[in-house]
């Protein structure tokens, strides 16, 4: 680099971007203060009640649901998801597995159980509260999604391929927003989920309380909402596409200690 250019860049670094740095610092402070007072725990309480509530034609609760570590084992179950389930012969994330338990244990139809998977501030969905409750039982444990079964490997590869897949009215892929380090939409910083250092904090904080809507949001919702903003049609709840993307992100972020349910914008 020639010296004159270096001097210009140096002067720029000291004047113009200073304001931008302050904005970034203050937004981080905002998020920190908000997360110290998170209502996420309220959803855990609601989820616990739903876990134990007899429902469906069989009037059964979900207490015998096998989330991967055996029927009814909650501690550490979320940290080991997504994973391959032999009984369903596919890779499942938390919500897909909960849906499986609703249909098998409680005898509910898939249509009925998925009628309202994403709630709102006035009425959180059953899936959201249950996700909060189950995820919270993995707090402090290392994220270790399944990686050894051939279908787990295939889900990871599919998720990675989908991350780059450009389509829709606006030609977007996940990489359009989450492809380059240090970029943001409005003031929201966008993690590059191909990189473990970025994916780790994501894996450790979802599902989460969402400040802007005062509701609780899950990873299935995150995938659904990203595709909405990508101007794509809607992906089905618990589909191979959404599970593969969640699996890919979680495997990329593996090893992080789970600290959620967290707080999002």
């Amino acid at each position, binding site marked *: 680099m020639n010296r004159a250019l270096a001097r210009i860049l140096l002067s720029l670094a000291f004047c113009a971007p200073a304001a931008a740095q302050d904005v970034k610092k203050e937004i981080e402070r905002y998020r920190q203060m908000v997360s110290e*007072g998170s209502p996420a725990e309220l959803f855990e309480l609601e989820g616990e009640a739903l876990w134990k509530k007899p429902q469906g034609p069989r009037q059964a609760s979900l207490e015998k649901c096998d989330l991967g570590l055996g029927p009814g084992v909650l501690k550490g179950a979320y940290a080991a998801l997504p994973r391959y389930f032999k009984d369903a012969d596919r890779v499942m994330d938390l919500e897909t597995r909960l849906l499986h338990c609703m249909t098998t244990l409680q005898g509910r139809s898939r249509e009925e159980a998925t009628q309202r998977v994403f709630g709102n501030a006035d009425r959180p969905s059953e899936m959201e509260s249950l996700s909060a409750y189950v995820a919270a039982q993995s707090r402090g444990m290392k994220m270790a999604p399944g990686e050894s079964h051939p279908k787990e490997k295939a889900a990871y590869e599919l998720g990675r391929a989908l991350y780059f897949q450009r389509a829709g009215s606006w030609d977007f892929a996940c990489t359009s927003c989450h492809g380059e380090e240090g970029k943001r939409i*409005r003031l929201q910083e966008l993690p590059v989920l191909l990189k473990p250092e970025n994916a780790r904090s994501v894996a450790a904080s979802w599902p989460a309380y969402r400040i802007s809507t005062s509701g609780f949001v899950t990873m299935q919702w995150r995938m659904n909402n990203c595709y909405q903003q990508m101007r794509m049609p809607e992906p089905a709840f618990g589909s191979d596409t959404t599970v593969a993307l969640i699996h890919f992100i979680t495997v990329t972020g593996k090893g992080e200690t789970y600290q959620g349910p967290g707080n999002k914008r």
Partner: protein
Amino acid sequence: MNRLRRTVLGALAAWLATPLAALAAWNESAFGAKTPQDALKGIGAANPAPSKEIVIDAPQIAENGAVVPIEISSNIPGTSSLAVVLEKNPFPLAAKFDFMEGAAPFVKLNVKMAETADVRVVATAGGRHYSATREIKVTIGGCGG
């Protein structure tokens, strides 16, 4: 309406209202005030003296006006109450906390702010009123318009 009926209804209404009134009072005129000045008058603190002993800890920028975290405290000896006035909200008075002996004049809470504005905190100590302000910018986050 005849007088007897009015009396009976009045007594009934008073009786129904009693449990709530006995439990707690809510300063309707102060909370209904539409300007910061009227809100201050409403809580009997029309002309508070500026004080550096009131601490308002808040981010300078809030990404979402629906949740603005603020932590307030007072180092003025004998502080018995802290009030929060959001100067550009349609109803500026957001909260008033009364502290008895044994409670520290400290609160952390989340408030809604309609737009970028000053947050004013009014402390009462020994019958006198003090205040400090801090500006918080409210911005738009995320992808939606």
